[in-house]
């Protein structure tokens, strides 16, 4: 779909990023990078939770896999020798470019998703949610105990800070594109059918398990990518970096934007990254009678999400997409229309 409109918007994005890089200081650039990473996370969660209707709570696990894998791969050989002396030699000698490491992280996450998905995707609803939470607990247990590779509870620090707004938004664009293509294909329509009524979909010949697995693995892949990007932004990861809090925050972004809407995920992620950031800076300055109010921003977010559930379950966009103005090809579109309805 590389038509003139897409190129125009990509150019606009590139220009904005260039402006941001020149004009904004490091702190704000970091926030932007986080926005992009959250967009990737929300879009990927939307695939399972929003489009197929499988409520997964295991996203943090896939992030962790992506982060740790890419960390072990990009860490300079010298650092690996000191930090992780028990690493198997072939890994210890390896130092890999960022792009490769990120992709490998994503692939490994997707692979784990596939293996885990075989038993877990037989469940639905509440049981699936808890099983995926269990996955997170298991991954964390592995991260804490497989000290040769993960350094246990100490975690890995000194990750080279490769992630900048170009990498982050670059991957966000890729994620958005892939998911957009997927959702608008026969696969995507099948997924929506499964969400509406899995039994009816199966009766129509849709391979329900295969589609759920596809969504689960693709979602895990991009969560792994996001994890890798995140690790190389904050430079230090521990088993507790990828806690349930992260999953919950991504769920919030997803729900605020509206499940089943790609632009909704983008809006939700942006909003729920910037607003808490704002709240946090206010929180540090606020105090009630001299008593600091840490955690207030999280409470406000949680109350917001509860209110959304009670009053506007479908989120800001209600599952619909924002239509960006098409500045080119308007005549072309009309021509297509006329062909589509010759009697008009």
């Amino acid at each position, binding site marked *: 779909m590389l038509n003139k409109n897409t190129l125009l918007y990509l150019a606009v994005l590139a220009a904005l990023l260039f402006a941001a890089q020149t004009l904004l200081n490091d702190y704000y650039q970091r926030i932007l990078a986080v926005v992009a990473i959250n967009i990737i996370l929300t879009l990927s969660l939307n695939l399972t*939770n929003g489009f197929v209707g499988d*409520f997964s709570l295991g996203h943090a696990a896939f992030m962790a896999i992506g982060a740790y894998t890419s960390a072990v791969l990009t860490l300079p050989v010298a650092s690996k020798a000191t930090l992780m002396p028990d690493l198997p030699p072939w890994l210890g000698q390896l130092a890999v470019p960022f792009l490769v490491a990120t992709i490998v992280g994503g692939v490994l996450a997707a692979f784990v998703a596939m293996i885990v998905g075989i*038993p*877990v995707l*037989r*469940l639905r*609803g*509440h*049981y699936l*949610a*808890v*099983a995926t*939470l*269990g*996955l997170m*607990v*298991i991954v*964390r*247990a*592995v991260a*804490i*105990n497989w000290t040769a590779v993960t350094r246990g509870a100490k975690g890995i620090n000194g990750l080279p800070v490769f992630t900048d707004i170009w990498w982050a938004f670059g991957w966000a664009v890729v994620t958005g594109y892939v998911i957009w293509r997927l959702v608008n294909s026969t696969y995507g329509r099948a997924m929506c059918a499964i969400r509406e009524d899995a039994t009816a979909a199966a009766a129509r010949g849709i391979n329900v398990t295969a589609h759920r697995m596809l969504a689960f693995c693709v979602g895990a892949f991009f969560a792994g990518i996001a994890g890798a990007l995140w690790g190389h932004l904050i430079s230090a990861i521990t088993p507790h970096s990828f806690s*349930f809090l992260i999953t*919950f925050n991504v*769920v919030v972004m997803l*729900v605020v934007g509206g499940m089943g809407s790609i632009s909704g995920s983008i809006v939700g992620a942006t909003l729920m990254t910037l607003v808490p950031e704002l709240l946090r800076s206010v929180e540090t300055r606020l105090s009630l009678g001299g*008593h600091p*109010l*840490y*955690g*207030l921003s*999280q*409470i406000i*977010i*949680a*109350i917001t*999400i*509860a209110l959304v*559930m*009670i009053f506007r*379950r479908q989120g800001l966009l209600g599952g619909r997409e924002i239509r960006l103005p098409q500045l080119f090809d308007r005549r072309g579109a009309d021509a297509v229309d006329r062909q589509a309805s010759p009697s008009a």
Partner: protein
Amino acid sequence: MYSLPYIAQQIVNGLNLGSIYALVAIGLTIVYGILRLINFAHGDLVMVGAYLALALILNTALPLGAAVLVPMIVVGGVGILVERLAYRPLRGAPEVAMLITSLAVSSIIQNGTVMSLSAQPRAFRLPADLIAQQQVGVVSFSTLEAISVSVAIGLMALLTVFVTRTRVGVAMRACAENLRAARLMGIDINQVIAYAFAIGSALAAVAGFMWAGRFGSIEPFMGFLPGLKAFVAAVIGGIGSIPGAMLGGYLLGFAEIFFVGFLPPEFSGYRDAFVFGLLLLVLLVRPRGLLPTTAEREG
């Protein structure tokens, strides 16, 4: 290889941990049976119970029994409040909405504690004579453990009497079976649901005391893991079934203790992974659990 005292010790530990899981699982299963809601905030009530108990121990001269009884009442009230404010507006809403709301409530309770107290762990120190180990034959246990387990079993016995002999208790079981028929009987389901939350939450408070006593310290996010594991216990026993929750709780407690106690030490860090591996196994092999209910609707 493993001496008798060692095995006996593991059994005592299993009883202790099993009692905790059983108490928490009961609350989860009662609510799930009636509302089909997994209350993710339930584990956090365990935490609230622990904090209240600590506050009473540190700040009052009340006997230890009060540090168990008062949190039961307060946390029971919190449970009723949470239901009224967060879950009742969502009756009849899709599963996902209730799930997300319970996550939100959990976050509010956790961060509320962080905000009003602090995220720092606090020591849960009990009088020395209570936690001193005593030897009775091959078995060694502390007074605290003995009392806790007895109280837990006693409460479970009381609950069983409640749900088999009293009007409201039987109504609770009836609601879990068939909510509409229960309404047609003249049962005020709002009242029954309030009871369900009150009882489950009160039991969770007791579990909080026991958990804190066992691990020696409390922090605002401590409820996450017991809550999740209690859910595993409830599923193993058969979600929606009170006897199932009790059975599942003890089975899981023993399984976890034996996993750590009888396998080589390299494995002990994987105890949580083991618990969830068990969950997956049960969900795949016997999803309705060991003591399935006869409820009309599917879980």
